């Protein structure tokens, strides 16, 4: 039972990728939970950096309540965005301020536009990314901190970068994080590593928002079943013991 991670898929990234760095997340293990502070900081990193290129289409602003934001805060966050709504009575689409019930605003209107703006590469939707890669958040942390100068003799095409954890090592995303790009309000160090850790934490929550209730329910269910098994064992033993006396 030591291997009770959240989503311990087999290491999918094979080939020439390096061993992932050893980071610990508070949500690991059967009793692990999300850390509200890390989630809020991670969201801040997503909002200020990643959301310029990556959508998160399964999330609505109201989902931020899970991370400890108040209704007012969520309204204020949503109000930063303009979304298209409609058609109105005149049959026209119109722009309005986003509400908590709206989905996260996507940076691009469609995949073609996203590719066009990124040298032909598609910045994937991040809502499920933590479950769509082997090793999940550990991989994400590695990816975001794994940029290096390419080894000698390797030439990269325009728009390509060297990353020791990416499958094939060549990635069309420039290193998105560097120290001090996002201001934290809670005194947490503003290093590249800390950003990577927080945003990976946030992305795990985005992919598996029901993890906490799942584990809480699980502990009750397993304890109940164990007790029930114990009772059934005693009953069975008693019945069979009476038989032997006969």
């Amino acid at each position, binding site marked *: 039972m030591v*291997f*009770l*991670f959240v*989503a*311990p*898929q087999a290491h*999918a990234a*094979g080939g020439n990728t390096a061993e992932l760095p050893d980071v610990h997340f508070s949500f690991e293990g*059967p009793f692990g939970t999300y850390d509200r502070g890390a989630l809020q900081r991670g969201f801040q990193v997503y909002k200020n950096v990643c959301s310029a290129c990556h959508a998160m289409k*399964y999330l609505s602003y109201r989902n931020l309540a899970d991370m400890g934001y108040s209704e007012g805060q969520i309204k204020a966050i949503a109000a930063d965005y303009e979304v298209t709504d409609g058609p109105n009575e005149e049959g026209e689409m119109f722009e309005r301020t986003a509400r908590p019930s709206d989905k996260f605003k996507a940076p691009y209107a469609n995949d073609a536009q996203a590719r066009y703006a990124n040298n032909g590469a598609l910045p994937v939707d991040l*809502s*499920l990314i933590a*479950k*769509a*890669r*082997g090793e*999940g958040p550990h991989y994400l942390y590695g990816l975001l901190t794994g940029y290096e100068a390419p080894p000698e003799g390797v030439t990269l095409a325009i728009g390509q970068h060297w990353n020791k954890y990416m*499958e094939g090592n060549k990635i069309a995303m420039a290193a998105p994080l560097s120290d001090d790009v996002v201001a934290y309000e809670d005194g947490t160090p503003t290093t590249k590593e800390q950003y990577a850790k927080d945003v990976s934490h946030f992305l795990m929550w985005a*992919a598996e*928002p*029901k993890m906490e209730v*799942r*584990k809480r*329910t*699980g*502990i009750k*269910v*397993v304890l109940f*079943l*164990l007790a*029930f*098994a114990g009772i*059934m*064992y005693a*009953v*069975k033993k008693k*019945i*069979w013991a009476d*038989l032997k006396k006969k």
Partner: protein
Amino acid sequence: MGSGNRKKLDNPALEWLDSRLPIVSMIQKEYGVFPTPKNFNYFWNFGAIAMVMLVTMIITGIVLAMNYATTASDAFDSVERIMRDVNHGWLLRYLHSNGASFFFIAVYIHMFRGMYYGSYKQPRELLWMMGVLIFLLMMATAFMGYVLPWGQMSFWGATVITNLFSAIPLVGDSIVTLLWGGFSVDNPTLNRFFALHYLFPFLIVAVVFLHVWALHVTGSNNPSGIEAKGKQDTLPFHPYYTMKDAFGIVVFLVIYATFVFFLPNALGHADNYIPANPLVTPAHIVPEWYFLPFYAILRAITFDIGIPFTDIVLIPAKLGGVLAMFGSIALLFVLPFLDKHPVRSSRYRPWYKWFFIAFTVNAFILGVCGGKPAEGIWVPLAQASTLYYFAFFMVIIPFLNKKEPVLELPGSISESVLNKKGAKA
């Protein structure tokens, strides 16, 4: 099932029912007083466990279907909606996806039990064959179910497996077109797979009914492999085995629940959280773990089979693989007619026992090979294991029929139980 010599019931309401439809008498006869060998070990729990899993799958499946959208454009999103917005949707989905794995675990143990204790032998041949039919239906159901979330592995698994049928001479391509409902895996494929995935579990229920009916005609086998000879060898099913089964079921559920609540994606593949994309092929296309041994057999045939010293190819490698895979299941089907040795239980078959244990280990090796890319050491290893799989049925068992000595068996189940106790003391 006739009402023959029905005993009057005390409860007037039940008596009213029973005299018109003797369902109460039947339950009493088949599950109450039903004489059951008294020496079952815990391997005999897995039929009842499989039954519980079947019911679990049907219930969770029907509720999932209420929230699932059967179109290629919406399927993936609708599954995410179930995971995020439907009340307890995450629980339903994890119960169903892990449930498939645990259903297979139960049935595999159930089958190995049957093979170890010779439960397939006369007079239980038909019972066994209906079991293999259930197994085939389960595989079809699970395969189609895995396509429904329309992730990358769904799509590419469906593409690889349906393409296999194109290896069949003459009609192969038409079969594939029919399966696809077009010229590639697409929306029509998803629609027909969903329709069939909903239907097949009920076919399984029907065959399970026949399976249990046949079981109640012959009665159960037991670890000694000796038929029950009278009252001293049996116990009424209730309360002895109802309680023992209940205990076994709950222990099984503890392990199942551990996966559902703490390791819900451990048995799945990360790529299936990427929406299906016909333009991007995943690096390794692997089926679910319970298909891996058969997948290994499929891929083990890497060579054309032809007439030696000529260029004439009789069976191209692809067709060879498909034949080997289906052949491996067909052999299970005819096992009762291959194994003619008069002794049932491995307990009294010192030779078969070890060949069968090797067969079990071999099945695990095949499973490991099936999960690895078809390169390097894994290819010859899969080929050697495939060879042993077939040799077990086609060479070893016929050889044992003739050569394995027939030991003297205890006179009855009671005697075998006493011998065992004596040996321990």
